């Protein structure tokens, strides 16, 4: 066993900002050229929202993994494993297993019955305006939480990677990320966004693969020795890294918090609006299936890499050095890159991390724009009396507005502890979106009030439970550590809000006097399973 010659003093100020910036600039230039080329034929609404439904299953699968492997996945999970060991690994399992829900229950049926957004599927047989409004509100909130977390993360990353720590400099970088994202989405629409995701996913997975092999090579390709290295480096409490409970095992409330999180992770993915929207970019349900299969393989293999990278960072950099670095836990992967391959590898990984934030933010923004323009503007406000051009014009303006909100929110949020926002987004997706999607696809009796109760009930309960949890007040790590109005002991609302979302969907349905529409359900069911009458690829028109 050998250890890398890394000096702790140097670890807090690593890399060469010029190298990092040039590699990132190269990524931006290359992707911009590709986005420009890909978007030449962008005309219709299906082009803008769904890339003309012209992507193959493989391309879409890579793009899905690009969308899903956010900075939280890459930097967050590596850091969590490096510092908390086994408990960090648990995240990646929830994130992966969740894809089976999407594969088995959602992706293909959704592709066959919808056009652009989640609300398309719900409004197939429920009353359009209330369910579209509810679904759009849930979509916009999930996207907002997720977006804020990504943008705030961008600020933290800058501190580490560009060697600047001033507030003004961080704000400039957040503004640059936001502005670039607006350009990508406005110019490229879904087609351009998808290509950015694909390029970024390939870079990220290849980068992680190289680092994994490199890190394993330090330990003679023995996983056991690598773990031993992490244990030795962590000092007295090192052995706990190999056991569950380092992060969540302290009290019964923290154990329940973990179960709550596990529930939200596994049921949330198939309700994330930016994931759902990707299923519309392929021509058929069969291609949608193929994309989820690709995504599962890529995401699964990537999380296996992060296991090695996390413990590798623990062994070669050490948890103390990671926590002391400017980016804190998030700096584990970049510091490992520096320990392995010096400033060039760090530069590449840093650029990939930026590209990740950029690509994920772009995917979120186009989802929110589609939801606002297609659901709220075209169908609720204009009641369908608007042409596709008008709808796309509103979508483009929405992109600019969301970009501005993301920049301002990101600048404000970086002073806050917002790591819980991603978990909150998953909890809302699982409590508000998943019950309505599943029931509207599989339960004949399900009706509008069931959907509306479930979406608003799931949404409101998630947010209230978070507000009154230790995440916001009453603990040292809270957003407001000096106040204490926390009466809900868990840091994740899922354990309560997800069952509540399902119960409200059932109760709302059974208590309503709404007349059922068996003919609509018949059409939906037949279309969902056979693909008859599904939206085709744009070229066929």
């Amino acid at each position: 066993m050998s250890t890398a010659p890394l000096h702790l003093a140097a670890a807090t100020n690593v890399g060469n900002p010029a190298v990092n910036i040039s590699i990132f600039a190269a990524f931006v230039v290359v992707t911009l050229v590709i986005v420009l080329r890909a978007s030449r034929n962008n005309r219709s609404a299906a082009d803008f929202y769904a890339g003309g439904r012209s992507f193959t299953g493989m391309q879409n699968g890579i793009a899905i993994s690009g969308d899903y492997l956010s900075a939280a996945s890459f930097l967050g999970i590596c850091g969590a494993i490096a510092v908390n060991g086994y408990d960090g690994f648990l995240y990646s399992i929830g994130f992966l297993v969740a894809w089976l829900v999407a594969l088995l229950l959602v992706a293909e049926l959704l592709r066959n019955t919808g056009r652009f957004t989640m609300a398309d599927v719900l409004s197939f047989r429920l009353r359009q305006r209330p369910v579209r409004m509810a679904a759009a509100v849930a979509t916009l909130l999930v996207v907002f939480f997720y977006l804020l977390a990504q943008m705030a993360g961008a600020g933290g990353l800058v501190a580490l990677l560009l060697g600047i720590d001033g507030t003004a400099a961080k704000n400039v970088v957040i503004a640059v990320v936001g502005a670039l994202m607006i350009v990508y989405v406005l110019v490229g629409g879904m087609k351009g966004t998808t290509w950015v995701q694909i390029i970024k996913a390939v870079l990220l997975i290849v980068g992680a693969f190289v680092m994994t092999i490199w890190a394993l090579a330090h330990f003679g390709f023995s996983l056991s020795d690598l773990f031993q290295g992490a244990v030795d480096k962590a000092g007295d409490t090192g052995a706990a890294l190999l056991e569950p409970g380092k992060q969540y095992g302290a009290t019964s409330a923290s154990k329940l918090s973990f179960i709550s999180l596990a529930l939200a992770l596994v049921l949330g993915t198939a309700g994330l609006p930016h994931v759902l929207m990707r299923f519309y970019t392929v021509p058929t349900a069969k291609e949608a299936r193929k994309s989820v299969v690709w995504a599962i393989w890529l995401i699964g293999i990537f999380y296996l890499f992060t296991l090695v990278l996390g413990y590798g960072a623990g062994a070669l950099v050490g948890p103390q050095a990671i926590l002391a670095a400017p980016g804190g836990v998030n700096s584990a992967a970049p510091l490992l890159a520096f320990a392995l391959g010096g400033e060039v590898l760090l530069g590449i990984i840093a650029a990939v991390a930026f590209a990740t934030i950029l690509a994920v933010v772009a995917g979120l923004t186009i989802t929110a724009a589609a939801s606002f323009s297609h659901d709220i503007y075209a169908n609720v406000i204009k009641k369908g009396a608007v042409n596709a051009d008008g709808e796309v014009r509103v979508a483009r303006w929405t992109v600019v507005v969301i970009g501005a909100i993301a920049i301002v929110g990101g600048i404000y949020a970086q002073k806050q502890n917002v790591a819980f926002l991603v978990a909150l987004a998953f909890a809302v997706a699982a409590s508000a979106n998943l019950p309505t999607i599943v029931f509207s696809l599989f339960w004949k009796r399900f009706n509008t009030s069931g959907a509306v109760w479930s979406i608003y009930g799931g949404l409101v309960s998630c947010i209230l439970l978070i507000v009154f949890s230790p995440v916001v007040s009453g603990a040292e790590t809270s957003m407001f550590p000096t106040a204490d109005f926390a009466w809900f002991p868990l840091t994740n609302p899922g354990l309560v809000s997800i069952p509540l979302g399902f119960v409200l969907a059932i109760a709302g349905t059974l208590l309503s006097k709404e007349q059922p529409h068996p003919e609509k359900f018949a059409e939906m069911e037949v279309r969902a399973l056979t693909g008859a009458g599904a939206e085709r690829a744009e070229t066929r028109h």
Partner: protein
Amino acid sequence: MADTAEATGETAYQRVERSEEFQGLRRRFRSFVFPLTALFLVWYFAYVLLASYAHDFMSTRVGDTTITVGLLFGLGQFVTTFVITMVYARWANRTFDPQAEALRAGIEEGDL
């Protein structure tokens, strides 16, 4: 588009839905997908609960290594996810698609 059977008050889609072919297709789909979903959810929560409440068991070292039972269970989750994905994709491509495809062709060329 779906009003050819107004005399009986039933749409063409409802006729398809009632047909034996479609009922069979739906039964085969649900009886494949629902048990599989139950299986992976039970196995996932068993794993999560073990990690929370069976600390010592999950921390047991395997042989002379630093590999724990918990780690093997975690890697087992990866394996089952990959296996279920392959099993489902194979079944869907080989068994489900041809039947759904035939029904769809009938619907789109027929009376809808």
